[in-house]
């Protein structure tokens, strides 16, 4: 090009591309896309005036009429005095690069549209926790802009009670490189806090270095409130059940004491009558007096057991092997087992995890269940009296113990623990109610199963040592 901007020479590539002769190319401007013409002319004029290098992107028409993008750079060549003697311009075909850039921009627009419109709050942070992106929903929610948020620190928008647990979860996720999963309350622009479920995921570069952590916050406030309402209802129900149980227990206690008391009173009257008969029947009077002593002691024993039942605070939990306790109780009851003609078989799983429990109470629990099972079989004459005890590990529930008898079974297994309910002639209606209170004091479960007239199975679970500690903060 001449210093005035007229075409001097063009190379063969340009002639081949445009399909125009060098002479025709003197009027190069008509080969530029009409939309780009003004801008190109403008740039070119400025470079000619100032002598600054020329640089522009424009579409140039090919011989077949198709426009392609070119990047054009032009440099002035100067003589010794610094005067421009000629302009050299280099046109580079950038059509493919332009297309790639365009599609990349399109994708970026799409992605950013997705992130901005999805019903969640999205953030991105560098590995040590500094935020470098949040979506518009976060800013709308907390009512600030990214700079203010970065300056204040996102922890400042959390509920004070949730800050420390969140820091802990974040730190441990950063150390281990694991995804993180927390719930916290985030302050809205109007000052109210709402619960969010936050899921964070680390991202890695090609070399496996952690470069980013992406997070998604989902508003779970309504769900949380519903859960809370449910919990309150459950708590109220459980209090109602407890009250009902206390009433039942009181009636049951009255019954337990009234029985020996009725016997004492009747024996006392009988004793007096035998003494005052003509002639006095001393042998009968003596028998009645002995029964008074015996039944009086019985009533005292009931009181002692009831007191023991209510001394819950005395629970001394230690690390226990449930199999050891089963074996101990079986040793204690051996003579009773023989006397009643019962065959006991055991199936105890080895290497059970230890349970946290009160040794004496757990012994009492097993003793009650064993005696209960043996008594249920007292009247069996047509088949062997078999009592099976088995212990095993129960996924998620710690240790499971089953005591199975082959007595008449239970018509209503769910009622077995009601304070009155007994199917036994000499049964103490409170025995199973006591069992249940022991198991519940150990955060376990006790229930009964009965399969159509072929005996009853009493099962209880006790959480293992670690879980129980977690519960009893």
């Amino acid at each position, binding site marked *: 090009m001449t210093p005035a901007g007229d075409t001097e020479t063009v190379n063969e590539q340009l002639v081949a591309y445009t399909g125009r002769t060098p002479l025709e190319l003197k009027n190069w401007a008509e080969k530029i896309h009409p939309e780009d013409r003004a801008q190109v002319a403008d740039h070119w004029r400025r470079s000619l005036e100032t002598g600054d290098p020329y640089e522009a992107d424009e579409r140039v028409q090919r011989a077949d009429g198709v426009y392609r993008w070119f990047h054009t750079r032009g440099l002035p060549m100067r003589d010794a005095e610094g005067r421009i003697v000629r302009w050299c311009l280099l046109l580079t075909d950038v059509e493919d690069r332009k297309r790639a850039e365009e599609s990349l921009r399109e994708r970026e627009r799409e992605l950013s549209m997705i992130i901005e419109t999805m019903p969640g709050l999205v953030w991105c942070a560098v590995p040590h926790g500094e935020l470098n992106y949040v979506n518009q929903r976060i800013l709308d929610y907390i009512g600030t802009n990214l700079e203010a948020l970065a300056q204040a620190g996102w922890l400042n928008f959390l509920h004070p009670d949730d800050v420390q647990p969140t820091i802990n979860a974040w730190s441990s996720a950063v150390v281990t490189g694991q995804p993180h999963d927390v719930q916290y309350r985030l302050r809205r622009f109007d000052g109210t806090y709402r619960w969010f479920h936050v899921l964070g995921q680390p991202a890695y570069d090609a070399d496996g270095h952690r470069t980013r952590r992406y997070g998604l916050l989902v508003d779970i406030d309504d769900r949380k409130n519903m859960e809370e309402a449910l919990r309150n209802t459950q708590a109220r129900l459980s209090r109602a059940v407890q009250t009902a149980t206390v009433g039942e227990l009181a009636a049951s206690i009255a019954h337990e004491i009234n029985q020996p008391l009725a016997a004492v*009173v009747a024996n006392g009257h009988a004793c007096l009558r035998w003494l005052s008969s003509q002639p006095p029947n001393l042998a009968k009077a003596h028998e009645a007096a002995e029964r008074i002593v015996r039944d009086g002691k019985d009533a005292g024993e009931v009181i002692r057991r009831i007191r023991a039942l209510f001394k819950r605070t005395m629970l001394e939990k230690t690390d226990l092997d449930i199999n050891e306790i089963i074996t101990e109780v079986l040793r204690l009851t051996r003579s009773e087992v023989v006397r009643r003609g019962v065959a006991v078989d055991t199936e105890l799983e080895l290497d059970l995890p230890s349970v946290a429990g009160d040794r004496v109470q757990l012994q009492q629990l097993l003793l009650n269940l064993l005696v209960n099972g043996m008594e249920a079989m007292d009247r069996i004459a047509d088949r062997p009296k078999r009592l099976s005890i088995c212990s095993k590990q129960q996924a998620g529930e710690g240790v499971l113990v089953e005591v199975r008898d082959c007595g008449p079974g239970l018509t209503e297994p769910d009622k077995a623990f009601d304070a009155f309910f007994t199917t036994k002639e000499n049964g103490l209606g409170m025995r199973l109610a006591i069992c249940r209170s022991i198991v519940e004091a150990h955060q376990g479960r006790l229930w009964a199963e009965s399969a159509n007239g072929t005996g009853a199975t009493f099962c209880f679970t006790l959480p293992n040592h670690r879980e129980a500690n977690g519960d009893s903060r």
Partner: protein
Amino acid sequence: VTPDNPIVLLVDDDPRVREALCSLISSVGLRVAAFGSAAEFLEFEKADAPACLVLDLQLPDVSGLELQLELAGGDAPPIVFISGHGDVPSSVRAMKAGAIEFLSKPFGEQELLQAIDAALALDRTARQKRSELAELRKTYSPHASRTRGAPVRSCGLRE
């Protein structure tokens, strides 16, 4: 001691209460037979004598109220209920179904013995009526008139 040799039938699942009441009842010269369950009581062959049933409300097999319903309408003896935790609805049901008395444990001897006396008196009257009725049937039934003079077996009202 009355000449017709009455008997008190006692049903209670608690052996301590059974022993004590047997002793008390026999100390006043009454015969007594004790049972631990309704089933045992039903199996027992009843003596031909005035009787009364002293019945515990809570039994291991069926409740005292159920046994009362089962016996109702027959020649069963009058019932005196005893209970370790007598609740109002149960006592009302028992009395409505014809029980003589509903005693809450522990009870005094006077209450029990008076109730037993009343029950035995009632049973004596009932037995008397039944026997008079049987006598009338024997006399006026067509079968009896055809076989006048032949030995006739005594038969109950229900047969």
